[in-house]
């Protein structure tokens, strides 16, 4: 079977995010960009399924700006077989909404005949946590979100999900969408030879218009602000002092 893995180019998770003073957004000029960490986990899981002989081909897809080529090359260096870049924006500050992304991915999944889509559970920039579920809806496929374990058993996927009360295991009929949570696996680092090889793997370039999808946002960003800052309090010298402060000053004990 073919597995489709959507990957997003986002600000590197180690970079301290700075809100622009004029409230127009977050400063993305000259900051390091990387693959969304949850998407790395998704790529890793797809590659492992291929290594186990469960999948024949892993296709990485990115929707966004031209620079997302680099993100796709990373997926190829990890072990994806080929990549599709759907250019849907020119300005790196433009974030394509999950609804439009899901519409494009649905067309790609249909065109490729994918039987499984493994996506990251959310992107660490807009924190929407939506694309996988939206894609499942548009394709009429079942969804297994927040996965910490995945096994393909015949025409079903058995997925353990991280839910509020603990873990839930469900079975979904294939074709299906799985979204990766943190503990699904530990993604590999691409080796230098594989990075070199990835440069020769096929990377097809498309546009949103090729799929007939309108990417006009439904949500207008009115403003982006710094969160309220919490001030540091005091250091106490002993447990007795701490308990006294909590009882008398804070009134929480």
């Amino acid at each position, binding site marked *: 079977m073919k597995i489709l893995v959507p990957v997003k180019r986002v600000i590197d998770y180690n970079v*301290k*995010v700075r*809100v622009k003073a004029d409230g127009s957004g*977050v400063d993305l000029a000259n900051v390091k960009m990387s693959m969304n960490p949850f998407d790395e986990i998704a790529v890793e899981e797809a590659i492992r399924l291929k290594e186990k002989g469960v999948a024949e081909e892993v296709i990485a897809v990115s929707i966004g700006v031209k620079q997302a080529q680099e993100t796709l090359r990373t997926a190829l260096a990890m072990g994806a077989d080929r990549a599709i870049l759907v250019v849907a924006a020119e300005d790196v500050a433009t974030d394509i909404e*999950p*609804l439009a992304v899901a519409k494009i991915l649905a067309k790609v999944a249909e065109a490729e005949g994918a039987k499984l889509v493994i996506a990251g559970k959310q992107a*660490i*920039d*807009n*924190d*929407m*946590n*939506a694309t996988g*579920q*939206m*894609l*499942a*809806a548009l394709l009429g*496929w*079942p*969804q*297994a979100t*927040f996965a*910490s374990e995945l096994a393909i058993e015949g025409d079903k996927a058995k997925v353990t*999900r*991280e*839910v*509020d*009360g*603990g873990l*839930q*295991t*469900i*079975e979904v009929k294939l074709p299906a969408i799985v979204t990766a*949570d943190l*503990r699904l696996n530990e993604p590999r680092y691409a080796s230098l030879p594989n990075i070199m090889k990835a440069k020769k793997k096929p990377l097809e370039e498309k546009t949103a218009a090729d799929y007939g999808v309108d990417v006009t946002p*439904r*949500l*207008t*960003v*009115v*403003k*982006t*602000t*710094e*969160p309220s800052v*919490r001030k*540091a*309090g*005091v*250091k*106490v010298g002993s*447990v007795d002092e*701490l*308990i006294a*402060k*909590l009882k008398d000053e*804070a009134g*929480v*004990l």
Partner: protein
Amino acid sequence: MAVLILAKHDNAHLNEATGKAVTAATAMGGDVTLLVAGENCGAVAEAAAKLGGVTKVIHVEGAEYAHRLAEPLTDLVKAFAEDYEHIVFPGTTSGRNVAPRLAALLDVMVISEITGVVAPDTFERPIYAGNAIQTVKSSDPKKVITVRGASFAAPGEQAPAPIETATGPADPGLSSWVEDKTQVSDRPELASAKIVVSGGRGVGSEENFAIVAALADKLGAAVGASRAAVDSGYAPNDWQVGQTGKVVAPDLYIALGISGAIQHLAGMKDSKVIVAINKDEEAPIFQVADYGLVGDLFTLVPEMAEKLG
């Protein structure tokens, strides 16, 4: 204007996140209808009817709703969607699972994890792990929303609103439930506890987490953990506090051996009072703590538990 909320529950008890969603919905304006779907969940529907601000409860029984599977629940909510401008979900894993699926079926954008209602079409939500707050205005005819519980107060009680019963569409049969592995505990639920005691990498091992748990039990508190502690196998995943875990805002949050990574702070920085105990006085957690105690948690925490006795 009217708001529909899908109640979160376990068929026996109404989850407190539902009440928080009611509070948020009240700010959007209009009648608030709670949809309670599950198996043998009559008691939940009765509890839901008493949440202050609820106009009506719709109670739907069905085995396919017992385990919160996304596909039947989404189809159910969609069947009622026509009458409402706002369709709201508590920001639980269940709400976050269903809301985007519904939004896509309605061809609207989901508005995830709102922390504030500015106007019926305008909402605040955290982005970049809480490092920025975005105000967004929706141009969609319907707003599909998940609500971050920690940002809204629980509503009061009221005389019970009327309960109607209804039936849902046929189960699409795309998925099935296998099993739940939940922690059975007498401790309060992490997301709604008044006091939370959390341990981080500094706790050192799964066995040592007993020290954290002992203090929590003394205080009648829930136990939490940092992502580092969970990733190291010291604590189960559902204890994780942080941007990718649970977001909590208790009256008192006690952080033990937690350095204070930004993604952890995103999950607890709205707590009323924060206490940090850490041997590293440069740990970033002290920048947000109201009371900091520098020292060895293995002596200080048992001492604190004993002195609270």
